[in-house]
C-alpha cells in the first residue's frame, strides 16, 4: 500500500504537470481538490483516464470520483480493491 501511494503521487505530479513538487510535498490525507492540491475538473478527467490506463479501473459514474479522488489514501484503497492491472 505504501509503495502504491508513492507511485500515485509521482504519477499525479507527472500527469498533472505539478511543477516544482515532489512526492514528499503531498500528504496521504491531503484533499486533492479544493483547498488541498487545488485540482479542477480537467484534472479529474486526467485521473479517470489514468485509473483506466494504468490500473484497468473504469469509473463509469463521475459522481463516484468525489469519494475515490478525495485523497491519495482513498485513491490507493480503491485501486487495491478494484485493480485489474
Amino acid at each position, binding site marked *: 500500500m505504501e509503495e502504491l501511494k508513492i507511485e500515485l503521487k509521482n504519477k499525479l505530479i507527472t500527469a498533472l504537470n505539478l*511543477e516544482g513538487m515532489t512526492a514528499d510535498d503531498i500528504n496521504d490525507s491531503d484533499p486533492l481538490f479544493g483547498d488541498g492540491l487545488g485540482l*479542477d475538473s480537467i484534472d479529474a478527467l*486526467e485521473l479517470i*483516464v489514468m485509473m483506466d490506463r494504468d490500473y484497468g479501473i473504469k469509473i463509469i459514474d463521475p459522481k463516484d470520483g468525489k469519494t475515490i479522488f478525495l485523497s491519495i489514501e482513498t485513491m490507493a484503497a480503491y485501486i487495491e480493491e478494484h485493480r485489474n492491472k
Partner: protein
Amino acid sequence: MKGKCYINGIGCVSPQKTHDGSFLEEVIDFRNASVYEVSKPDYQKYISPVSVRRMSSAVKNSIVASSMALDEAGVDDLDAIITGTGFGCIQDSEKFLKGLIDHDEDFLTPTPFIQSTHNTVAGQIALLRKCRAYNFTYVNGANSFPSALLDALLQITSMEANTILIGGVDEMAPHTRALFQTLGQFKKNDTEFDYLDNKTEGCTSSEGSAFFVLSNEHMEETYAEVVDVFFLNNLVSQDVKTFTIEFLTRNNLSPNEVDCVLLGKNGDLTFDVVYDDFSSLFPSSNQLVFKHLFGEMLTAPAIALWLSCKIFKTQSIPKSLALDVPRSSVNYILIYNQYRNSDHSLMLLKNV
C-alpha cells in the same frame, strides 16, 4: 473616414533577453546553434501557479508578452485580439498524437487535446482578460503575423476598432523539429556555419512571442505608426524589386527615403540570395538583420516589428543588428521577410 494606426505598447519573449525591456545591450551568442531556446521570464509573475502548469511555452510566452504590451499602453478594454502563428501549439499537438500512438488510440487525456489548437493563445488571453470581443488567429505560414497586422490595420484605420491587441507566436517541438531537419529545411544539430557569411542550407529553429497594442490614438508612449502592410504567397508574375517598388509607390515613397531595411535573412544559402535583390534597391539605407540573434520562426516578422519599435523609441540601432554603420536618426523602416522564397511580406513603419 481613414484614421491612423499607432503602436502604443509592445512586449516580447524571445531567445534574447527582450522580456526585461532591454534592447540588446547584452547579446546572447547563438553561434553554430541550430536551435534557439527562449530566454525565459519569471512566468509566475504573470500567471498563477495553478494555470501555468497546463500551459505550453507558446501560451506562457504570449501571456507574458501580451501583458507587457497591455501594461505599457495602459489598456484594459480591447476591441479585438488577433494572433498569427505558423505552427500553433505544436507541443500539445505532439503530446496528443504521441498519446494516440502509445495507447493504441485509447486512453486519451483532455489537456493536450484542449490546448493543441492554433487559436489556444488568443483564446487563453481572452479568458484571462475576460475579453469577449473579436478573436481571430491567422495561420498562413510565414505570412501569419503580417495577416494579423493587416486585419488590425484595416479595422483601426477604418475606425471599426479603437484598440487591438495583436501578436505573433510560435513554439517548437522535438518531433516536428526532427522532421524539418530530415526535410533539410532546418539545419542539422552539428552544423557549423557563419550566419552572416553562410555556406550551408537550411535555417535555424527558434521560438518566441511578440505582442503589440495598436490604436488610432497617438499617445506619449507611441512607438511608431504602421503605415502599410503587404504580402504575397508566391511571386508568380513579378520579381522582388517590382513588388517592392509598387508597394513604395502606393505609399508615395522612394527607396532613398527609407532609412533602414530590416531583412529576414535566415542563414539558408539557397534562399538568402532573394534578399540581395531586395537590398540592391536601397543603396543609401541601413541594412539590418536580426535572425542571427533570434533564429528563424514563421512569425519572425513580429520580432522584426518589435525591434523596429525599439529603434524608433531609442533612435538608435544596436551594432549587432547593422550590416553597415548605423545611422543616428530613423524616420522610416521597411521590414522584408520571406521563407524559402514563399510568403513574401513588407511592413512599412514611420517614426511619430
